[in-house]
């Protein structure tokens, strides 16, 4: 596949193209982190995060690529790793404890939401993910999931979102989610 074909497939949400890119640039991207005081595990995480950023921008139609795909992803990796190094440097022991205390509350709420999302059916999850992460249009969602038309997709999304809302609200009272 050439660059143009890969990018077109990525924009259409073709996960096979994403896999292809992952394997193709794995060594190049992880080397960046490893040669800058990172472990391979950190390198893999950074690369995956960068690739997913690229994926989300491309699928949502918010990316006009003016360089090679590898150049773009490489620059994301650089930024992410730089931020991570800064974060590690900044956090003193005292700051770490405070951050952990605050994070536990948020983490607990996130877990509840994640559990509720897991309770949705596969189609519901796909619809919501394509809508809220890939920011696909209803037409694209209908095409990808085989719905009859955009109205069907819209109704499905509404029902799935409503179900998720109800599941989350049932777990805790609304007060628990107010800031």
């Amino acid at each position, binding site marked *: 596949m050439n660059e143009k074909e890969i990018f077109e497939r990525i924009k259409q949400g073709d996960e096979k193209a994403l896999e292809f890119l992952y394997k193709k640039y794995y*060594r190049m991207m992880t080397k960046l982190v490893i040669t800058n005081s990172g472990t*391979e595990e950190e390198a893999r995480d950074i690369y995956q995060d960068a690739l997913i950023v690229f994926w989300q921008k491309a699928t949502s139609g918010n990316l006009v690529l003016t360089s090679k795909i590898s150049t773009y992803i490489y620059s994301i990796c650089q930024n992410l790793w730089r931020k991570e190094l800064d974060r590690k440097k900044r956090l003193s022991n005292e700051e770490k404890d405070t951050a952990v205390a605050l994070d536990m509350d948020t983490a607990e709420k*996130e877990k509840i939401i*994640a559990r509720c999302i897991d309770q949705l059916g596969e189609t519901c999850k796909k619809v919501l993910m394509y809508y809220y992460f890939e920011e696909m249009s209803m037409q694209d969602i209908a095409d990808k999931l085989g719905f009859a038309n955009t109205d069907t997709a819209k109704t499905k999304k509404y029902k799935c979102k409503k179900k998720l809302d109800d599941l989350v609200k049932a777990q805790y009272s609304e007060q628990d989610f107010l800031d």
Partner: protein
Amino acid sequence: MATERDLELLDDYLTNRLNAQDRVAFETKLEADPDLKSEYNLQQRLVKGIQSARVAELKGMLNNIPVAPVGTGGSALIGKLAAGTFVVGAVIIGIYLYNNRGEETQTTQQVETPVQQPEQNATEPNAQTETDSTPEEKRQDVAAQPENTNAASKPEVTTTVPQEDSEVVAERTPIKVYDPNEEAEGDKSEDAAEPVSTEARPAGAAIIVEVDKTNKKYNFHYQFRGGRLYLYGPFEKPLYEILEFFGADDKRTTFLYYKEGYYLLKEDGTEKIKALTPITDAVLIQKLTEYRKK
């Protein structure tokens, strides 16, 4: 109290689907309505949760992809040294063996010019470093765009002409490809290949075929792009065949055989995706069927 319309706007706001003007108006409303603000906070967490779930799903998929470990700087250096030593050793051994080779010199020359000396290749298969294709197919390999390595790595390539000796290929009755429009008046639906002389020869090398079964927009189409043929639709490998014919001027005519139907694949120099239209001309169908049976 948040209305249904407010909740719709909230959803659009959270997913960046509002234009600038509506966005500002909504933000003003958000600040003025505590109930709506509460709902916004909840919905914001839900949207973040959905996004996180998708990220986790994608990361899980990527984690399952096998990749070779990169290794640390130190081990990489040792690895490079070892690899370098091995390569140098292999080169030295190769030079030594080469200098001591006597009777194999002639074989080396044959390998370099396989097309011109097919008989020698046939009698000394050990010298063959290329694939074991016949000279006829070698010439067509050179003529056709895709390389052998590409063909080998593409599982979707379908070769309809079995591997045969050049003598058998020459004995085949050449098929005449003609334009059905010459017989049918005003029939524009089959603007098929230009008339080809009776010397049309079937191709041994196949064009590289790629099948896309997931495209929702194109589900029974084809496209020539980058020297390859793309089929859009549920084309399973055993169920379709590609038939290629070359005329006297080396112009290629390609047909698709699928589920007992024949389809002309027109190459007009554009990369336009075209719908597959079945051939209805009975004579042409018969000729193609006869060729396939052979």
